């Protein structure tokens, strides 16, 4: 018996979910612990990440930029040890690492809290000069 249609079920799923899979196939949000909900928006020049964090302010959140990813984590409060000096910080209660479909310009990145929602704007890095390499031999 011949197969009637040669189809890839994943491509159908991508279409159904309306995900621009070619751009975003490599983007995955890794999560650890109970994490706050995240919205991610994309255009040709930047990515915007919104995170619901009611009651939190800038000092409660750590933001780490990697060339092509962003790590957003809870910043545990410093505890004071028995000797009165700040004790080591504990592990963050949650963290999320979001891989991006392009390299970002960390210098132009900005983050702002508005009414308990953190918005992180990450502009795309200027394309590095394309270099052709001559193959010898």
């Amino acid at each position, binding site marked *: 018996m011949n197969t009637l249609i040669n189809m890839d079920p994943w491509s159908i799923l991508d279409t159904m979910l309306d*995900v*621009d899979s070619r751009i*975003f196939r490599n*983007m995955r*949000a890794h999560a650890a612990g109970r994490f706050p*909900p*995240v*919205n*991610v*928006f*994309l*255009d040709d020049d*930047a990515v*915007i990440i*919104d995170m*619901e*964090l*009611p*009651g*939190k*302010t800038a000092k409660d959140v750590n933001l780490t930029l990697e060339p092509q990813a962003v790590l957003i984590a809870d910043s545990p409060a410093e505890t004071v040890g028995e000797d009165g000096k700040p004790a080591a910080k504990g592990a963050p209660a949650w963290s999320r690492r979001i891989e991006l479909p392009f390299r970002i310009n960390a210098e132009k990145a900005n983050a702002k*809290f*508005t*009414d*308990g*929602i953190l918005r992180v704007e990450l502009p795309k890095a200027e394309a590095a000069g394309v270099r052709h390499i001559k193959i010898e031999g």
Partner: protein
Amino acid sequence: MNNEEKFTVPTATLTEKPDGYELRILVPGIGKKDAELHMDGKTLALKTHASYQNPAGFKQVNAEFERTNYALNAELPEMADPASLEAKLANGVLTVTVRKRAETQAKKIEIG
């Protein structure tokens, strides 16, 4: 056609303190101008209209929360004094404090 607004009941925590109560309501995305608070007898009514907007011109590629309107009706405890009610909205958290009525507060009695 359905033009009804949808409301979500926010997460809220009521804490009792020696001299009063504190109600902590999580309303992320809600600023002072977006929230209405009413007292009717002993019932506290909260209604909000979200101003959170998705960035214009961007395509959403991951969606875990959306613009939310919150509504909550909470009856104050019997011992609360509605006249002492104070509300503060900061960083997406509405904190409502109310004192206990003087005659209901615990009193320390000196032993003569």
